[in-house]
């Protein structure tokens, strides 16, 4: 090899390095702040990596920013400091706060239309898109991880109590009978529930097609008032209180803590998030199955459809308009059936688009995992009504705390259901008034 040749090689290397450098400069970075931990964190990172590999112009960086409330607070602080992330994952409880933030948020339907990316609200499951749409049906944020409430039963405990696990309780009175038999067979606890406000009041109201709050559960405007102290809800909470006295229902905590009481075998039944599927599968040392959320057969219209929980992706307003193109492209990638089906199968969250649901069916996911589709069936049971679209309440974090406090006063016998729900409505309404005051001009 002579020296002339090696010069040429060097020049070529230099040129290609330069080309690489300019290419690296052209890549626009999109920050995606999220709250997914453990295995979910890995999967979120994988989605970003796969998107980055699929094109050259944009680079999505997924960053874990703490739990839901922490990442939301961080994003708001960053916005106030004038340096917001591009995408932030916000839990359903924060929806009203995000929606009221005019000028801070770029609505997803607008973003997709401006960037000419294919986007159709009807492609999403009705119960998912309705939760995050404005009154004219436009999606404001991008659905991502959604779950709903199901009943899990311990097959082994059922058999021991002389019950047939293949025929799980369908109604709340049947739940009580089963819980009584479980108790009689020596179980420490018959039935418990995770996320009591979400399962036993929020979704309970939708499932029975009774209002949780006025103004279509808050969708119609900020001047909404709570009304979950209606006869149907009072009856249910009073029933749970009576069952608690008999030891058939055991209170195990406000959030996800009760799940441990089911996976350890202590409680034979639990109503909680469909997203707990993977956790139960990993930890339960007994045969178990998923069943549909119970209802009261004597309530007209029940069962309606359940409502979702989980989070969506919000786009914060950007000074650099170039960003929007990349965000829109990423959303198109994210909502593709393949990505969604994989997300659904890996995590246990529901597939948010109908196409992904169909793909899961053709792949045979539900024959492989019986009961994995019960959540979707509940969500799509009937077209959502004004009572079952979802909830849009300001200061929802405080309202949930209030509900938790008042329900605890029922379980401990200090109040009856009527007194507690009346008090919760009164205190919650003060929070709604405060929110209205802060968010109206």
């Amino acid at each position, binding site marked *: 090899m002579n020296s002339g040749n090696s010069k040429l090689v060097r020049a070529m290397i230099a040129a290609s390095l330069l080309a690489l450098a300019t290419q690296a400069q052209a890549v626009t970075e999109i920050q995606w702040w999220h709250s997914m931990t453990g295995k979910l964190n890995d999967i979120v990172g994988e989605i970003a990596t796969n998107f980055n590999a699929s094109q050259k112009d944009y680079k999505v960086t997924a960053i874990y920013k703490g739990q839901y409330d922490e990442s939301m607070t961080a994003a708001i602080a960053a916005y106030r400091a004038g340096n917001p992330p591009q995408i932030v994952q916000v839990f359903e409880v924060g929806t009203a706060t995000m929606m009221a933030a005019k000028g801070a948020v770029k609505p997803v339907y607008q973003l997709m239309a401006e960037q000419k990316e294919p986007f159709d609200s009807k492609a999403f499951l009705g119960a998912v898109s309705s939760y995050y749409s404005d009154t004219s049906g436009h999606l404001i944020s991008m659905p991502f991880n959604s779950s709903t409430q199901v009943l899990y039963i311990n097959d082994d405990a059922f058999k021991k109590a002389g019950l047939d696990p293949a025929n799980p309780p369908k109604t709340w009175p049947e739940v009580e009978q089963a819980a009584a038999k479980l108790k009689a067979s020596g179980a420490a606890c018959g039935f418990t529930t995770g996320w009591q406000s979400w399962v036993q009041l929020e979704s309970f109201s939708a499932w029975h097609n009774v209002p949780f709050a006025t103004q279509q559960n808050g969708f119609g405007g900020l001047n909404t008032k709570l009304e979950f102290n209606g006869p149907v809800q009072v009856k249910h909470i009073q029933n749970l209180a009576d069952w608690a006295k008999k030891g058939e229902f055991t209170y*195990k905590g406000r959030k996800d803590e009760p799940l*441990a009481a089911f996976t350890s075998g202590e409680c034979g039944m639990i109503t909680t998030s469909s997203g707990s599927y993977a956790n139960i599968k990993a930890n339960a040392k007994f045969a178990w199955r998923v069943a549909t959320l119970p209802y009261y057969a004597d309530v007209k219209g029940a069962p309606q459809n359940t409502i979702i929980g989980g989070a969506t992706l919000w786009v914060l307003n950007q000074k650099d308009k170039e960003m929007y193109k990349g965000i829109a492209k990423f959303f198109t990638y994210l909502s593709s059936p393949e990505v969604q089906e994989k997300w659904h199968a890996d995590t246990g969250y529901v597939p948010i688009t109908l196409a992904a649901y169909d793909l899961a069916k053709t792949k045979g996911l539900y024959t492989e995992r019986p009961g994995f589709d019960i959540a979707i069936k509940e969500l799509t049971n009937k077209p959502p009504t004004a009572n079952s679209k979802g909830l849009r309440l300001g200061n929802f974090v405080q309202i949930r705390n209030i509900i938790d406090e008042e329900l605890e006063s029922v379980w401990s016998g200090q109040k009856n259901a009527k007194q507690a729900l009346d008090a919760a409505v009164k205190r919650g309404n003060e929070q709604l008034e405060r929110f209205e005051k*802060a968010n109206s001009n």
Partner: protein
Amino acid sequence: MEKRVVFKSPWLPYALVAPQLIITLVFFFWPASQAMYWSLLIQDAFAARTQFVWFDNFRDLFNDPRYLASFQITAVFSVLVTFIGLAVALLLAVFADRVVRGARVYKTLLIWPYAVAAAVAAVLWLFLLNPTLGVVTHLLRALGYDWNYLLNARQALILIVITAVWKQISYNFLFFLAGLQSVPKSLIEAAAIDGAGPARRFWTIIFPMLSPTTFFLLVVNIVYAFFDTFAIVDAATGGGPVQATAILVFKVYQDGVQALDLGGSAAQSVVLMAIVIALTVIQFRFVERKVQY
């Protein structure tokens, strides 16, 4: 003849105190004045709309019977944490002071809990006392005692007091031990020769000579109980059952950080600040007189 030293330079004294002044201004007066200003505002989370509402936030607070109840809970909690924390640490320090063999290991082990974050400390105690999973819970059940802090208000308070005390004992222990080691041995020996027993020596000599340390720790522990314990409550009980463990600072954290009601949260911070300033003034005016330096 006056022997006072006077600075000749007009600016040197100011330059010498400047770092201290700047730190106080930047890290205390500035945030405190911000909190006071914020407490008069109602604002949405994104600061798109701000209204000046005078004292509405305070009026809302004091019209809320639960906020008033939270004062009582905080008082009980702070007294328990401070008193138990000081008493146990003093006891341990007295023992450690007498240990000859293995003293270093023993002292080091006692300091460990201070390095544990508050939320982690709460989770550690949860593992022991959780109604579903707790090891101690199963022991108590076996003894016929129903331990369930999820619905029993008194037990929930006990849980957070234990956790808060456990975390603070190391700190108190260190100071007490240093205080004990600076008590002159000659005094104690003289008292012993005069026939004073260990208990009498402790109460008439050692305890009074420790009083500057005790006073310092009293102030520090009250501030700790008031301000530094929200992570424990957050991780252990979430303020429940009902409201049994919702101490003032936890509500500040909950309303401000978790619920983004900045005006209401700032108003609570201002109230809390006023209480702690008042308490500290009282301690310095009335308790400090009994301290023998």
